């Protein structure tokens, strides 16, 4: 049955309300897209509707600048992502599957970090990074980002591993798998949907965080995209077409990532998260 038929058959009133909410939610982004193809004259004359001819040169004009920021973001985000996934898998798996002395205390000690305002540690972290001469360096962004992210990621992975049937692990153990064998052959493959969820959360964070880069990266050309867009805005304040073209370009990479991963993301959340 086609989606169209299903929409007709199920809950028409609910879906009308949802459609209304979706239009309100998406309108600012539609406006961004529409305006990104206008020049200033079209912008003031046809504010609410798309205007021909489309000015694709807005995009070519801002591309080098925005692409630079996107490149920086990938450079910082990809290693952070790998580290967070590896550490959260290991830690979440350990908390979920092992009974050991100090387990609850260590887990609480970790969760306590969730309550810790990021800005509180910002200042000593800044001083520490300065003393190590790590400010503005690659590891000076990646490692703090990782440390901010692994706590919640561990929480998600622990919940995830606890929901997996115990028998799988016990059977493997009876078959003579060692601790590393269990981890590598059983836990890692089974972790993929859960990892998908934390990967997306992590990418959302690293793609969005402006505070640490603004504090620690002094070279404007080395800024990741979210922080970079701030300096971008001040250059194009009065040219609405290129300004919105830049915003759109900055949004594209994540939308592409999202298009490929959304189902895994939603599946990883299956069963819900709760306290």
């Amino acid at each position, binding site marked *: 049955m086609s989606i169209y038929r299903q929409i007709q058959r*199920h809950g028409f009133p609910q879906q009308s309300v949802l459609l209304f*909410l979706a239009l309100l939610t*998406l309108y600012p982004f539609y406006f961004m897209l529409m305006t990104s193809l206008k020049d200033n004259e079209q912008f003031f004359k046809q504010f609410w509707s798309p205007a021909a001819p489309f000015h694709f040169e807005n995009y070519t004009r801002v591309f080098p600048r925005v692409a630079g920021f996107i490149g920086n973001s990938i450079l910082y985000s990809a290693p952070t992502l790998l580290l967070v996934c590896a550490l959260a898998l290991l*830690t979440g798996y350990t908390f979920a599957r*092992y009974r050991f002395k100090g387990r609850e205390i260590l887990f609480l000690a*970790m969760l306590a970090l969730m309550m810790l*305002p990021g*800005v509180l540690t910002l200042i000593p972290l800044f001083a520490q990074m300065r003393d190590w001469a790590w400010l503005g360096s690659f590891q000076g962004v990646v490692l703090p980002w990782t440390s901010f992210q692994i706590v919640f990621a561990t929480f998600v992975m622990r919940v995830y591993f606890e929901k997996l049937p115990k028998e799988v692990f016990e059977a493997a153990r009876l078959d003579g798998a060692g601790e590393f064998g269990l981890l590598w052959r059983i836990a890692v493959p089974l972790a993929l949907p859960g990892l998908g969820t934390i990967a997306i959360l992590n990418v959302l964070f690293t793609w969005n965080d402006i505070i640490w880069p603004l504090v620690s990266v002094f070279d404007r050309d080395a800024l990741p995209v979210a922080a970079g867009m701030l300096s971008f805005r001040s250059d194009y304040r009065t040219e*609405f077409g290129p300004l919105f073209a830049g915003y759109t370009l900055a949004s594209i990479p994540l939308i592409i990532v999202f298009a490929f991963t959304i189902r895994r993301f939603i599946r990883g959340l299956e069963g819900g998260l709760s*306290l």
Partner: protein
Amino acid sequence: METQPRSMIGSRQNVGGAKSVPITWVRLAPYVFLIPAFLLLLALRYIPAVSAILYSFTDWNGMRAPNYVGLQNYTELFKDRLFIASLSNIAFYTVSHTALVVVMAFFAAELVFSLRNRMLQTLWQIIFVIPLVVPQTVTFLVWGFVFNTQSGLLNTLLVSLGLGNLQQPWLGQSNTALLSIIFIGFPFVSSFAFLVYISSLQSLPSEIFDAAKIDGCNTLQRIFLVDVPLLRGALVLTVILLVLEGIQLLTPQLVLTGGGPGTSTESPANLLYRSAFKYGEFGYATAIGVIMLLIGLVFSYFSIRLRYQGAVDVNI
């Protein structure tokens, strides 16, 4: 830096050995697996957190060796008009924004859930996740444009509706700036909370809904008497996350208002950021951070306690 964590791990091994059970690889494995994450957290989270608290009792400016000044930073803080204003702003922001997000996200999750068709549910989920993947800075910048005085969406809309006299410099005047920031992201459906609610609803066993139906529950009764109590874990989790996020609000200040006009959108995090990185008052700034930490801890403690009081859905 290197020796301290190692010795900690050593002491953990001794805990296992103290009971004179032979130390086997199986018993050690969990500790070994936890080392990498805890090393990183120790260096970049625990040590900075503890030193932040210590620095808050000093006149540290980031360069000179800090001098102990007792509670001076704290007494000054509570005499600081800006800080008091930032606390009341953040209270207003956090309460209203959290309430709006939770109610709207829950409402939309119930609507989606009521469709009783997995494919459609996923479709609507995807639609509402799209805005989440637009970089937050861009979202704020675009919404800043919605509230723009000269050619912003809201003012242009008002003019074309013949309500031109209602035009406002939304972010540029004290009485509307904070409200405008609260309404960024309207209608608040597109949020992490929405995803958590819908996936929690989907995970409830269908027998519960059948039972409710047999007992003669109408939809509203079912939502308030069945769904809300069963989702209290998810609700409390999202409320805590939203409140902690609200207490630390800084992005709209950095992107849009800078805390102004006047003190109208000032937030503790913004004050901390400025004191430290503009004026070099590191000691004073960490004191602000400690107050934020205390507020967050007190709130989390009471909400978690509330969540487990008379809980029907978990065994403690």
